[in-house]
């Protein structure tokens, strides 16, 4: 099974953000690329996700569920810009 893309982030991130985040522009810490999250590469395991930069392949963010909580890491994102 190959990766899918950041369109699939709409649901998981709707649990944390009040606006649609697939249209948000993220800046990669590693390479500086700025792309909408919909274009990122997403790897799935059960309900967990690893999201990688479509330009340099480094990890942008992860979402991991465990009983009773949801853990979001944003180590690879320097900034997120959303339309208001």
């Amino acid at each position: 099974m190959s990766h899918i893309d950041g369109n699939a982030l709409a649901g998981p991130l709707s649990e944390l953000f009040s606006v649609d985040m697939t249209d948000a522009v993220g800046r990669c810490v590693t390479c500086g690329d700025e792309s909408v999250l919909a274009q990122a590469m997403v790897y799935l395991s059960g309900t967990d996700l690893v999201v990688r930069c479509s330009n340099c392949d480094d990890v942008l963010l992860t979402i991991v569920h465990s009983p009773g909580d949801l853990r979001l890491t944003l180590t690879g994102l320097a900034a997120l810009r959303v339309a208001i």
Partner: protein
Amino acid sequence: MSAVWKVGVVASTHAETPTGRSIQIDVPGWGGNLAGQHVDVRLTAPDGYQAVRSYSIASASPGDRLELAVDRLPDGEVSPYLVDDLLPGDELELRGPLGGWFVWRPEQTEPVQLIGGGSGIVPLMAMIRAHAASGSTARFRLLYSVRTAEDAFYSEELAALASAHFTIDWVYTRVAPAGWPSPAGRVNRQVLEASTIAAGESPSVFVCGPTGFVETVADALVALGHSAASVKTERFGGK
């Protein structure tokens, strides 16, 4: 768990291809969706293991019924259940409608080129249905790539919707129908150049299909002069 999950009840299913079917689901409080949006489906195994997958919505009508169309992925965690086991009356946990990037709105007037591979037709079908239902006169052109004629989803409805404002180009990758003018083959730059709206007309382009298909097509479109921002993509994995 989160309160955003809704429970839908399967109203009916319809075989579309040898490996795929459409599923009509009633979801109280759904209230319609934009063309191109998706829904997350969550399955829970008896041991508590959960899997969530995103499925594009084929419908774009108001009200509390939505339609999915799903192809069975051989190594899928969720799609084999949806294609082989789900029955009318069964309940499904759903979250949505989701996504505001890969969408078409009836107020858009620019030409639209749709490019689908296999079950990648699903969100494009919602756009085609919304285009027809709204009476839009925006030019719509669909390039639909399927392995063989019997692998096409919605072939009868697509034929019925063809009009002065909506035209279809078929690509057969494994077996072309008898008498088809061109041999079976994959979508490549030459096919795109011959059978899609040219970059000079500044179309909005929506590409959906298996990851490899989408990346090949998107790269070729940019090489043909489309701006990367005008090409929106949705990948569902697969080969």
